[in-house]
């Protein structure tokens, strides 16, 4: 097998592993990719990412804990989770096709930025009160539960709310804050 066909096969396999949901959460862990593709999987993902760019898609890496400021080590990559996400933003006209009402997205945007402004955690009642300023009360609770179920927000046993895995995978927090303050 030539080097080129070897990599072609690995790239196809990587695309299957990344696109198809195999567990409760989409995406795949680094160590799983290492088992399926070999230890040079970061290189394979880089090539696949170049291919996906043409389709306006990208491979997003969500690290366990904080994102490393320098080039991540293989150990950090093995523990990270990899997803395929859209590369550019979503046109607002497409929101309906995704099953989201404009109110739901605005509520999600407000919730995420509110939690960011509160240093990453806030009490559920505080967030509900904030959302109630613009959304009807009955919708606020329903929406918060929906965001939690989808993995955007998490709630612990003390009623504290945090940003969950899907926000880290899908939302550029820094850009969101910049856009809101503009």
């Amino acid at each position, binding site marked *: 097998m030539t080097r080129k066909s070897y990599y072609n096969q690995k790239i196809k396999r990587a695309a299957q592993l990344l*696109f198809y949901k195999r567990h409760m959460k989409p*995406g795949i862990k680094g160590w799983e990719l290492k088992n399926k593709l070999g230890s040079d999987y970061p290189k394979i993902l880089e090539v696949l990412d170049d291919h996906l760019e043409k389709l306006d898609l990208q491979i997003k890496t969500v690290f366990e804990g904080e994102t490393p400021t320098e080039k991540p080590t293989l150990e950090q990559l093995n523990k990270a989770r990899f997803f395929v996400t859209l590369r550019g*933003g979503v046109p*607002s006209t497409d929101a309906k096709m995704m099953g989201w009402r404009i109110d739901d997205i*605005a509520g999600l*945007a407000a919730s995420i930025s509110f939690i960011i*402004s509160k240093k990453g955690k*806030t009490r559920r009642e505080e967030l509900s009160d904030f959302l109630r300023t613009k959304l009807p009360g009955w919708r606020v609770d329903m929406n918060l539960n929906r965001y939690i179920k989808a993995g955007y927000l998490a709630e612990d046993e003390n009623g504290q709310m945090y940003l969950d895995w899907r926000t880290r995978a899908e939302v550029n927090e820094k850009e*969101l804050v910049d856009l809101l303050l503009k």
Partner: protein
Amino acid sequence: MSQTEKKGNMERIQRVIELCKSVDTKGLDPFAVNVDDIIETLKTCFPTCESPEELSLDAEAIQHLASVIQNQGNWVKHRSTSLYTDPFLLQEKILSIPKDELAERFMRVWNPVVESEQLTIPSFTEALRYWQELVPMSDRWQNDAPMQVESGETTREELIKLNILAEKTFFDHLDTFWQELKQKVGDNEKILYWDFVGADTYEQTIERAYMTSFLVTYGYATLQLIPLEEEIFIIPFKTQKSDLADKRMVSVPISVSHQEWTKWKEENQQ
């Protein structure tokens, strides 16, 4: 060191734990906790810790204090990152932007995960093979003929014996207990908590403390706390008070530990 001083120290450690916990659970500002003061308090209390329970309480306080310091560290770290924004400013901005505009801005930085769920021929073949090998339900769950049982009658005594019915309802018990409290108080207005709750065995004491808590909750009696003398009295009401739900209720945690029971028993025997 006297027992009272020691008890006071343990209460101080307990208060430190509660304060540190509240930073985590209620999301309070971690800098509201004066770490130096707490370390000083723990330093003073530590030499009085002797039993394993006291030492573990001290260790627990240190652990919670470490968590507060970690929160302070995170707070400083967050302030120094580019993500830090004045919360008030950000909240004002969110409130001033119309909903549509907010959603539109969010969608510019939102890159939803792309995922696919699709049946493939290999998985379909595997599923078919599984189906072929699957044992029919009729074989897995054999339909046994229902068991024939002779019908008959049972008495209330038999049901009590089988623990299906209680001999007395809970409220009968509570009423008896209330009468006992009133009898023990007699002409006095009140009785010391431990003098009423304390019994020959620790198990009985726990049961009496449990029943007493219901007497207070359901308005048969009330508690009088004298913090300076560290005394708790129970005052029975002549009639049950039903208007308590309209008033502000306060929970009073009372420790009924084995150690306290032993101490009470020794004092009682003297």
